[in-house]
């Protein structure tokens, strides 16, 4: 069975500082990994994905994520946080066969403090 873990329920960071939101995964076979962001009363928005290739993936709004196979991690990063980045962030893992179902982590609430 595949699983995704987001070990932090909440991350607080000062505006202008770098931010990291952590994600680890467990899957047999190749991982296909995604990050989504959810603003209040809105659906999830796609940020970026790792399918294959470079371990550093660049996405929307200046976010990037680093895939680390040996540590089975896919941490989301941004060099300089904005107050508008405050939201709920979800890591997701897609199976490589069958229905290609997405399994989501429980989410991490990011608060950027002015």
């Amino acid at each position: 069975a595949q699983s995704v873990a987001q070990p932090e329920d909440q991350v607080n960071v000062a505006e202008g500082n770098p931010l990291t939101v952590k994600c680890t995964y467990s899957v047999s076979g190749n991982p296909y990994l995604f990050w989504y962001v959810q603003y209040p009363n809105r659906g999830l928005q796609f940020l970026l994905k790792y399918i294959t290739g470079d371990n550093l993936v660049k996405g929307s709004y200046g976010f990037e994520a680093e895939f680390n196979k040996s540590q089975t991690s896919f941490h989301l990063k941004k060099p300089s946080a904005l107050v508008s980045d405050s939201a709920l962030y979800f890591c997701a893992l897609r199976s490589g066969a069958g229905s290609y179902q997405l399994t989501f982590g429980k989410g991490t609430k990011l608060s950027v403090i002015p």
Partner: protein
Amino acid sequence: EAGVAQSPRYKIIEKRQSVAFWCNPISGHATLYWYQQILGQGPKLLIQFQNNGVVDDSQLPKDRFSAERLKGVDSTLKIQPAKLEDSAVYLCASSQSSVHEQYFGPGTRLTVT
């Protein structure tokens, strides 16, 4: 390009009543998904359609939940009868195919009292 549309946005019902949600995916997207998101948790897939056929409904409580996607475009999700534990946000998503990224609608927040 228009996004995924869902209605209603909010619904309050009493337990044992029935409710239906509607979803209109992005034009041309063959794959449609319904998720249940309980407060404090990530979305959980209920059912996945490819065109108008069901690909995965392994986590759908079939004794009370049903879904259909007639003509391979719009979809409805129904709960009958509702239980208190069905209180959640129901998200619809669509993608070009099952291997492409999914795009989500704004969700329907259901409260069962």
